[in-house]
């Protein structure tokens, strides 16, 4: 026996870990689970370890103080050698971790791996997902910039809507009456001690159950899970058609883990670190805060929910979703595992993916937000001014000066909160235009108090010119008759 072997034996005599580790590594797994579909769990663990390492490296420089955090991030980005790269790895690692955890969850769901006897593995996994999202949100707060500051305000506004306890929850969350030093300190404690500690514990539990209960076999359509017989069937399967996890299946995990680390590093190198955006100074109000990628869908949802639905949806929605995820293995703990025979499961995943994807895509360009500088920045396209009367041009001026442009686009420039007005004259008659401008409605403010009659006349004259060439503007037929009757009467009167 070589020296290394002797040293190893010396340690093992005291630790007695070699045998259990060997057992765990060589435990038989069903042959067909050595699949590229089964690599996401280990990839999530790999990225989590990367986050631990890069997080500790960042903590060497980062200062968790509301007055210093932003400057310490600037130092990391610009002064500390390769500080930008570690920040970028941590930031991209966070995005990858959320993505991989979600993919892992979808795979487990579609392969029926949450069914008997792996219910608890799934439930622990649900909590791991929640903690991962908690890490993503608290991490965004630690990048203490304008987005973080106003993001906390949004979090506080949501939390405050909890009946009765709302204000107390807000103060517990902020560590005081406003977003300030104590807020950052407590999110630092959450992000660095509390949540990672729980994550490590839950990851260990999760892994322990994977080892004890075995990797979910490849689902075969028609092979149903029954509580009474499943465990025997699984053991028979691993005896008959099993192979040791190491090295039979593990090489795919190893390759994928390395590939993911490389992908994180490549993104970090190419795209660089996230922010920080502007200084977290509440007196700078020229800002349009935006959440990080994985919360963009929520941003979109909050814009589209009708006001009356919002508070119930915000408070009850998460409870329902989490309760459903936790109860899922009890509601469908037996039966078919294969996604080929679970159309509702497949459609549910697709539906959720499409909803989240659409909301995320929309939040990429926020059609619901007014463009705060469109009125002064975006020019009125030439074709809308060419050959117009003085009154109509005056109307174009009113259109810009009164910030109409912030919500209404012309020639694809301007806000998208309201409808584009390139051809508004085709849709609305003169009377309807006047009514809409003065009274508002349909999500538009009333401008009655802020426009003089002359301004309204000019504005409507301009709006009436907004129709495609060769397409007549909308007109109220009755109005012509009414006006002509009026004229007739006037003509008749002198007689």
């Amino acid at each position: 026996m070589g020296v290394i072997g002797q040293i190893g034996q010396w340690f093992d005599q005291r630790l007695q870990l070699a045998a259990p580790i060997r057992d765990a590594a060589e435990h038989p797994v069903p042959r067909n689970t050595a699949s590229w579909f089964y690599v996401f769990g280990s990839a999530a663990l790999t990225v989590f370890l990367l986050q631990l390492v890069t997080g500790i490296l960042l903590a060497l420089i980062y200062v968790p103080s509301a007055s210093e955090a932003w400057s310490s991030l600037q130092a990391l980005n610009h002064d500390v050698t390769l500080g930008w790269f570690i920040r970028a790895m941590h930031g991209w690692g966070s995005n990858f971790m959320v993505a991989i955890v979600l993919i892992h969850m979808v795979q487990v769901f579609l392969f029926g791996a949450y069914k008997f006897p792996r219910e608890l593995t799934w439930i622990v996994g649900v909590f791991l997902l929640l903690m991962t999202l908690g890490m993503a949100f608290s991490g965004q707060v630690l990048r203490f910039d304008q987005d973080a500051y106003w993001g906390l305000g949004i979090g506080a506004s949501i939390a405050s809507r909890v009946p009765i306890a709302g204000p107390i929850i807000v103060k517990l969350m902020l560590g005081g009456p406003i977003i300030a030093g104590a807020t950052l300190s407590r999110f630092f404690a959450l992000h660095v001690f509390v949540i990672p500690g729980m994550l490590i514990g839950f990851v260990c539990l999760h892994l322990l159950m994977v080892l004890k209960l075995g990797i979910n076999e490849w689902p075969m359509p028609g092979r149903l899970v029954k509580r009474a017989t499943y465990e025997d069937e699984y053991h028979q399967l691993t005896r008959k058609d099993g192979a040791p996890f190491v090295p039979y299946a593990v090489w795919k995990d190893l390759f994928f883990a390395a590939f993911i680390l490389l992908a994180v590093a490549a993104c970090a190198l190419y795209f660089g670190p996230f922010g920080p955006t502007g200084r977290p100074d509440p007196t700078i109000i020229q800002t349009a805060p935006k959440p990080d990628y994985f919360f963009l869908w929520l941003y979109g949802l909050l814009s589209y929910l009708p006001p009356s639905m919002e508070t119930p949806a915000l408070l009850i929605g998460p409870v329902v979703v989490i309760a459903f995820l936790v109860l899922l293995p009890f509601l469908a703990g037996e039966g078919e595992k294969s996604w080929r025979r679970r159309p509702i499961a497949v459609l549910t995943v697709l539906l959720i993916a499409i909803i989240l994807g659409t909301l995320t895509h929309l939040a990429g360009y926020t059609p619901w937000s007014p463009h705060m500088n469109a009125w002064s920045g975006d020019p009125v396209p030439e074709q809308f001014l060419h050959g117009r009367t003085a009154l109509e041009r005056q109307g174009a001026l009113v259109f810009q000066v009164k910030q109409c442009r912030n919500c209404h686009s012309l020639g694809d420039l301007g806000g998208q909160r309201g409808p584009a007005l390139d051809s508004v004259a085709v849709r609305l008659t003169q009377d309807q235009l006047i009514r809409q401008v003065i009274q508002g409605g349909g999500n538009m403010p009333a401008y009655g108090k802020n426009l003089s009659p002359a301004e309204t006349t000019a504005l409507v004259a301009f709006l009436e010119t907004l129709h495609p060439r060769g397409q007549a503007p909308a007109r109220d037929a009755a109005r012509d008759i009414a006006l002509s009757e009026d004229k007739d009467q006037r003509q008749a009167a002198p007689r």
Partner: protein
Amino acid sequence: MSNENLVSRRGFFMKMGILFNGLVAAALTVPIVGYLLSCITRGRANAYLSWVPLGPVSEFPEGETRLATFRNPYVTPTDGKTVDTVCWVRRVEGEQFQVFAINCAHLGCPVRWFPQSGLFMCPCHGGAYYRDGSRASGPPERGLFEYPYKVQDGMVTIQAGELPTPGSPTASLFGNKAPCGARNELVSIESKLSASSETNALLRKTKTWA
């Protein structure tokens, strides 16, 4: 008497040990929970709120809405710039003011004032408010939050100290009621317009407050 019914000396001491630990843990819970919850009030109720000056009345021209900066009354050493807060001050006339929180009543983003169109607009989800702070359009369920104010020795002073949120007690104390000025303006809108259904709803609401 059989031995099974007897409590052994070691068993008794183990139980006593658990009990002793329980008592110590309970005793330690009091300071720990007290420490954790201290951020809710820091001593007494509303300890965070106090009157802070915004500037002399002359800084705010009549009929205009200006941005004012104030320092939060409760400051800790690591707060940095976060304790400097802004608000929109509207001087209606004379010593009649409206002081609006910068935070949108929807989710707290900073609203911006556009004097030309007389609107506050929020860059986040597109909430809009009229010059009197009442809701104009978008997702907010209510008008802008208002700070209570008073004019003292020629200084505009507001009662501030807490982040205004839809559920905060200060918001319900001071902001849910339509201020006097706003009520007058709404009535004048009514007389000027053949009120739309939305204005009608708003007016009905205002009348119930009055």
